[in-house]
């Protein structure tokens, strides 16, 4: 799928949905694959660790489901939708650099079973997320 890039050079794939907390969502058969965006990984710097929830954990939208550690910061991960965790990327904590290098592929974090389809409407499509991060980059 063609990707759109912002002026600052961040990768924002067209086929994904986004949150204001810089998570992305790919919908696959009623499951939401979740990760963090290229913009987010760039802000965090070298990522050293990812703290994952466990399979079977349920989260409400906006609840913290894990963290991403860089050397000097810990960023919380917020559930983009209500749902139950059906799969976690168990390899990720020991290969945290995948979040930096392949945020949309090997850097995926969890898969959530979507319990409320309507919430998908409230996520940003790529173009809107692009605008959002462009504004943030300008704010400096």
């Amino acid at each position: 799928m063609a990707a759109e890039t912002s002026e600052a050079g961040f990768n924002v794939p067209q086929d994904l949905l986004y949150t204001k907390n810089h998570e992305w969502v790919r919908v696959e058969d009623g499951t939401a694959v979740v990760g963090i965006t290229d913009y987010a990984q760039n802000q965090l710097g070298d990522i050293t660790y990812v703290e994952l929830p466990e399979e079977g954990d349920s989260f409400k939208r906006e609840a913290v489901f894990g963290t991403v550690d860089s050397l000097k910061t810990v960023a919380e991960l917020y559930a983009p939708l209500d749902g139950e965790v059906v799969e976690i990327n168990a390899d990720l904590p020991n290969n945290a650099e995948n979040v930096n290098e392949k945020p949309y592929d090997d850097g995926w974090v969890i898969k959530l079973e979507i319990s409320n389809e309507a919430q998908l409407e409230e996520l940003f499509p790529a173009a809107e997320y692009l605008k959002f991060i462009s504004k943030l980059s300008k704010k400096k």
Partner: protein
Amino acid sequence: MKYIPQSNEDRRELLNAVGAKHIDELFQHIPSELRVQSNLNYPLAQSEQDLRKTFQEIGALSPSPKRSFAGCGIYQHEIPSVVPFLQGRSEFSTAYTPFQPEISQGLLQCIYEFQTLACQLTEMELSNASLYDGATSLGEAILMALRIKKRSKGKILISQAIQPFYLQVVQTYCKNFQDRIQFIPLSGDHLDISQLKQVLNDQVDILVTQSPNVFGVIENYPEIASLIKESKVLWLTSTMEPLSFGLTKGPGAYGAHIVTAEGQSFGNSAYLGGSTYGIFCTKDEFIRNLPGRLVGQTLDQRGRRSYTLTFATREQFIRRGRATSNICTNNNLNMLAGLIHMSVLGKRGIRELAEQNFSKTEFLKDELRKSDFQVSDSPTFNEFVLETKQPASHFLNASSKESWVCGVDLGRFKEEWKHKLLIHVSELHSKEELLQLTQFLRAQSK
């Protein structure tokens, strides 16, 4: 005032520079009704001469015991002359935490060396830079084990033979998990292993033991090891006398998962039990749950070996509410004393010192047995319990009258222990003193 290099002239210049006429202007945003208006009846300032006198008078409030056989968590060992000499260097004592590695390589390397010694002593893979003391280390160990076992709500088995102050600290730390705690009773002066066998099942998450225990007895770790080997139980150990590791295997050799110890015996005077430092070791795989500071090796920009604080995101200043602990210190100066003492002893010294402690203790036990005293056959290191016909307090009162201390009355912890006198023997007690103690105990038993 000698600690404030600000004369009236200096003050005028500084006030001028900040554009204030009077110092009160710098505090003007504090409502006047909340300002202190007097000197609060605070005592007059003392000069150095006054202080020396004051402290001399305070020191004289009690006689200083000529001899002591009190242990039970704080032990008497000779501190080598190099320890206070090196520990007292102000480059160590007036330094701050080594957060900026380039300007703190000395401190960081000391911690790295200490971490290594702690691992070697306990036969564990990973050590932190130390915690406050042995008791809080045990509390932190349980909290760490609970983090590792995060979903589980299984039981926490705790040995009844752990020193009661340690248990009190554990109770405080575990207040919110009281219902999961189950105590394993004693069989005589050690943990009842058959009872342990009975209660060990897959509903148990954590096992907590101490060796040598409150009676000075060395617990049967090989047997406990075989019991938990196939299970998922996390085994946490505590030791009040780390010198015992000079003769016993480290708990790591038996498969313990978290090993804690009181570090005081190495390098630190008693000082009423504080400050000391806590040794805290675990397995590499648990690093993310480890509390406390950690120093790691790395390179600088020019490829030279360097040291730095690492895995910092576990700690409070970054992880804040989700931190492994709120701990913000590593009792560095006490740890440093321990490091220096252990370096001085070295491989041969730690064994020789442990052997001296052991031999003198066994000598005393034999002398007491010869005098028909009841001394258990259980294995001990440098402290043991004397079962007494009269309460132990009787002997303590008698020795106090002569200005010395013959041991610790375990009755202070539990009514049912009031006939147990806990006696600690170290390299500092001469054969003469041991014979005198025997004579005294004999005389007082009549």
